[in-house]
């Protein structure tokens, strides 16, 4: 589960496919590692099922970092749970042009889809792809759809996206092949703020239709 990634980083992997257990373990481990600085480590990045650890190879050798990581893994008691957020979402219409199609594919009315979508809080699985872009999961089996066949060259910041049993939120203008179901006024990226993103892996999101 520990692998060098080039000569200046290593990856701690908790699974080879995405599921709840692997994701929570990755997030919990990243939190534990961030809480206790490791000599030579310059960056710790939680991802869907793994954690990237970048280190300075001038100061530290792979084996030293790997040894510390193994010790930490042995006594990792941290929880993956983070803060709770309430996110207002405008579903459908020009805010979510794919809402009707998504509901139709799942054989329910748009209102029923919104209610199912918001029924349970989702967890931030990871930030990736673009600044402040978060993947949130997991929806139950009844709400799983593949991505669209075509990519929209640009959806605006705040777009709420849906595919692959997840909801994702764009914090900047991006291209996407995901279904656009709504829009939130919440902004998860401000390059002038410290930190520039608010939502962290492990945070719980409660979606509210407005």
């Amino acid at each position: 589960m520990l692998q060098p990634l080039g000569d200046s980083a290593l990856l701690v992997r908790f699974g080879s496919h995405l599921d709840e257990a692997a994701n929570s373990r990755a997030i919990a481990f990243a939190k534990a590692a961030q809480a206790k600085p490791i000599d030579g480590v310059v960056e710790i990045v939680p991802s869907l099922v793994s954690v990237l650890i970048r280190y300075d190879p001038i100061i530290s050798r792979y084996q030293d970092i790997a040894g510390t990581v193994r010790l930490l893994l042995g006594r990792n008691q941290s929880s993956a749970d983070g803060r709770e957020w309430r996110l207002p979402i405008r579903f459908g219409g020009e805010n979510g042009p794919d809402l009707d199609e998504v509901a139709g594919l799942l054989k329910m009315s748009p209102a029923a889809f919104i209610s199912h979508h918001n029924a349970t809080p989702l967890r931030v699985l990871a930030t990736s792809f673009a600044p402040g872009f978060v993947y949130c999961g997991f929806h139950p089996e009844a709400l799983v759809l593949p991505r669209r066949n075509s990519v929209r060259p640009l959806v605006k910041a705040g777009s709420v996206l849906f595919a692959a049993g997840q909801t994702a939120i764009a914090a900047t203008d991006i291209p996407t092949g995901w279904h656009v179901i709504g829009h939130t006024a919440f902004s998860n990226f401000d390059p002038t703020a410290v930190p520039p993103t608010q939502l962290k892996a492990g945070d719980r999101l409660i979606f509210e239709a407005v």
Partner: protein
Amino acid sequence: MVASITIERAGPLTSIQDAGRFGHLADGISASGPMDLAAFHRAGLLAGSGGQAGIEFSMLGLDLRVDDGTLSAGWDGGHFDVFLNDTPLIWPGHADLHPGDRLRISPAKAGNYGYLRFGGEIDVPEIMGSRSTSLRAKLGGLDGRALTAGDRLQIFGSCAEPQLLAPIIREDGPIRFIWGLHAELFPLDLRQKFVTEAFRITSMMDRMGVRLKDEAGVFANSQILSLVSDPVICGDIQILGDGTPIVLGRDHQPTGGYPRIGTIIWADLDRFFQLRPNAQVMFQSVGLDHAQALLRSGTQ
């Protein structure tokens, strides 16, 4: 010192860079920074730069004029012809620039990227601790975009003594890499071919990645693998679904789900990114200890 310059001609992908915006992968932002980091640092020494940022320009070169003020400039990276007004100067090199001067850097004779640094700092805001432009995230540098003709930049702050440097000598040898995250997913005979067959650099290159041509068909029959997304780093060699190898650059995406056969070692990245379209490239596997020893000894 305060000086201002106007870009009169810029090729595509000309951008303001400093050493990079590290530490923000968890915010979804890769570090950016110069494609040829060593040349960028050397241009700074040649200019006697008291600042952190410089201009990275691509194969087509760069022309600029000085509007106000006197400033020191240094240049390195690849091999370009450079003229101050109409006088040819040496590459790498240095000059003091005065109001009305024109610096003309003509298309490269070797390499893809050149660097122009100044005595002072380029007056663009620090975004998340860095002045580097991320063309992918559209932030940093000048409004998060590439520089174009007509852009005006202010240079401010103090200058150190410019240093004289001999041109950097880089070996022509194979590009060294460490077997990657998914190397074991590729059959042994394919891995053997990967280190014995030549690849070719293509013109499909930018700051995000460099596509290679696999003329020997090393990956022609490799299965399309569906993998969970994991963090990626600069220098990762990804194999796309159609068998195309692509080496990730400084503006790489933060994560990726394509199989990665290897990662180019840090000491060879600058040299790799300067390889021009159509150049042949061979890969040589090295151990992690060897790669880190090279870094500690400062060898390139």
